[in-house]
């Protein structure tokens, strides 16, 4: 086992069942919102991802936000880095900066296609893909050289993770791709959100596991959000039963009561899903996407961890 540079990787290698969550910096020059979210999350998760221009929208830098979150709240971050917006020079540069600033985990993503973003006329880069990015990080961390073999002054202390999609259809193509990224040197996997436990189980069964996998979940604040996901991302199936339960919770009592009921639905639904995954698979942890619903994270984690 390689040396663990981060609390997150130490927890995983120590066999702990871990929770991570996610913070999305917006198009802003202010840090208040990300610090507020991190303060809510920090007692319940071992680390939080910081998104990098999700949905191809130009937001506050994930690297800067990761640094500020760590400095202001002490919550460890998993800095997401996409290969859509930077060529290899910029990627190397950001990785050196991340390591120098004490960021210890990065998650590489391809990045949503620019056509759906808020600057659709931009040039997509993709100089490297996520597999090649992982290889590059391995060279930087393990050999102290950049992609072209140039020596780096100082150690690069980073763990690199990748994304997998248990909802993918055809799944065998996705599994081959994820295995390729593991062979390239990825150290952990966080998955696309899953509502259907059977999909997560099938993915974990098919995948030739040699690294920890955190299954993604997304507790929805309303049935409309769940329906939105179904309409926007064709491969994600959200069970009707879950949507119906949210809808019925929304109708109960005043706004406060209704929020409480929605929380109950999410805690019940996802804690059962997580329990089943823990009992039947080798899931190492859970990644909870929140998008402004940070308060649910502690509630789910508390029930699961008892």
């Amino acid at each position, binding site marked *: 086992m390689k040396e663990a540079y981060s609390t997150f990787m130490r927890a995983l290698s120590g066999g702990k069942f871990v929770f991570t969550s996610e913070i999305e910096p917006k198009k802003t020059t202010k840090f208040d919102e990300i610090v507020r979210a991190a303060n809510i999350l920090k007692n319940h998760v071992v680390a939080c991802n910081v998104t990098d221009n999700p949905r191809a929208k130009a937001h506050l830098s994930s690297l800067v936000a990761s640094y500020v979150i760590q400095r202001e709240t002490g919550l460890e971050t998993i800095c997401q880095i996409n290969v859509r917006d930077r060529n290899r020079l910029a990627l190397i540069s950001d990785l050196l900066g991340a390591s120098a600033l004490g960021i210890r985990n990065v998650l590489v993503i*391809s990045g949503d*296609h620019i056509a759906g973003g808020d600057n659709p006329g931009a040039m997509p880069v993709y100089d490297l893909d996520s597999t090649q990015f992982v*290889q*590059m990080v391995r060279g930087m961390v393990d050999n102290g050289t950049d992609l072209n073999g140039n020596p780096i002054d100082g150690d690069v202390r980073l763990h690199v993770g990748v994304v997998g999609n248990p909802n993918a259809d*055809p799944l065998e*193509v996705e599994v081959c791709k994820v295995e*390729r990224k593991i062979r390239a040197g990825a150290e952990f996997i966080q998955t696309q959100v899953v509502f259907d436990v059977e999909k997560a189980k099938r993915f974990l069964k098919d995948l030739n596991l040699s690294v920890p996998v955190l299954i993604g979940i997304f507790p929805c604040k309303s049935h409309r959000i769940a329906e939105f996901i179904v309409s926007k991302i*064709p491969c994600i199936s959200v069970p009707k039963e879950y949507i119906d339960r949210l809808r019925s919770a929304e109708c109960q009592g005043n706004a406060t009561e209704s929020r409480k009921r929605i929380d109950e639905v999410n805690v019940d639904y996802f804690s059962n899903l997580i329990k089943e995954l823990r009992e039947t698979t080798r899931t190492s942890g859970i990644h909870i996407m929140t998008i402004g619903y940070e308060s649910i994270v502690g509630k789910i984690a508390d029930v699961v961890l008892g």
Partner: protein
Amino acid sequence: MIITKSKPKEVVLRSVGDRKRVFIVGCGTCATLCQTGGEEQVEEMANLLRERSVGKVVVETPCDIRVLKRDLSPHLGMIESADAILALCCGAGAQAISELTGKIVIPGLDTLFLGETERIGRFYERCRACGDCIIYETGGICPIVRCAKGLLNGPCGGMANGKCEAGGYMRDCAWVLIYRRLKELGMTQRFMEIRAVRDRSRRAEPQELRFR
């Protein structure tokens, strides 16, 4: 084939501006097949410009300086007197015309891609001229051009039900096509291989090929 499309007439007319003498050059090869720069389109453009059109010719391959010289030679007088040349050919042809004649060239077409023709009006981009062909490894399907992100180790997370997120899940994910083709060919192992980072330096400057 190099696939071109006609610029809107008003854009061409705006570029022509108040020039009084315009010579029109079409292309007898790619632009003829695309129906953007053949005899018919050259004639249409001449009609549009009316008395301002002082001459026209469809050059067999305007991108070939030798052929261009040959096919323009009967028209040198007209070309000399023209104050612009309207080129109904690809960018390579238009630049060759500019280089050879020294005249200002107005492009009448936009050059789109290297493509495959299903039939007239149905053209598909199939090659990005990347200079490093790998389709043997990918079942004869080029990921550089057919994957919306040009990934060498796809698919990405934007694949759903075998379709690509770019353009709203209407087109096939190239990497799913590649996987299926390789599987049919008994070459799945090729899919599993990690394809290395590319040397992009040759794309960073105008390329020249000189082998003689």
